């Protein structure tokens, strides 16, 4: 097993600054390696995590991330939960449109991240903020 990754327990990381986004990437990478994702799948899930962590920071005003390993009996995987208590996403359909952005980016964060993972769930409201759960399974 990869050093420094406790597979049994969720790994938490706050997202409050640019450097935290880098830490999220490194954490997700370590867990993805530990559950033996292929190199391409590692790259995909780390990229998705980077996009979502940045969204949490920029649009959610900071938040936290939790990385866990999952096992459905046949395959292992990585599950990442991003949570913030920001203003929520008003129009989800619009937010998932390629190229739509309110933050001056390329507008690929949400829609792109969804294409890079196997499972993608989003709960959002103006009161409770946004919570995104993504899962990537080993092939």
């Amino acid at each position: 097993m990869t050093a420094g990754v406790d597979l049994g327990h969720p790994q938490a990381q706050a997202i409050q600054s640019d450097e935290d986004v880098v830490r999220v990437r490194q954490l997700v990478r370590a867990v993805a390696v530990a559950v033996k994702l292929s190199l391409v799948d590692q790259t995909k899930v780390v990229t998705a995590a980077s996009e979502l962590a940045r969204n949490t920071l920029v649009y959610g005003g900071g938040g936290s991330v939790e990385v866990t390993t999952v096992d459905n009996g046949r395959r292992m995987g990585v599950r990442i939960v991003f949570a913030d208590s920001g203003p929520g996403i008003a129009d989800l359909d619009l937010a998932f449109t390629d190229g739509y952005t309110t933050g001056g980016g390329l507008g690929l964060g949400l829609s792109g991240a969804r294409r890079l993972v196997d499972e993608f769930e989003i709960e959002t409201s103006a009161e409770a903020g946004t919570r995104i759960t993504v899962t990537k399974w080993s092939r």
Partner: protein
Amino acid sequence: MERVPILKIGDILLVSIQLDMSDQTAVQLQDDLAERIVATGCHGVIIDITALDIVDSFVGRMLSTIASISKVLDAETVVVGMRPAVAITLVELGLSLNGIRTALNVERGMELIAAARADELEYQLDDDPDAETAIP
């Protein structure tokens, strides 16, 4: 904050990104590079991303911006050494890196810049009647 070093080799600026950049570092690199292009008068920029294990939309946008800025400053930018997994991920992400020239490695990148430069000079010589006075 860490800074990405920029090396000058002949007429080319070489940027070899070796660390997992924070967004701030990426923006800083963008500014540094624009200044160095003007200060050195270089006509080529090679950005080596061999060591990068991911390129997300932020870094992708930075690369595009650098390419556009250097174009305005009369320098050709070539991004070299992108890993296969990174390329596959970028395609899936929907990032096309429009307007960026790419090459497999630094050597090919240098060839590309030399060829582009040669083409440009040749074009001026062939088609521009004032070219001979313009080029010493």
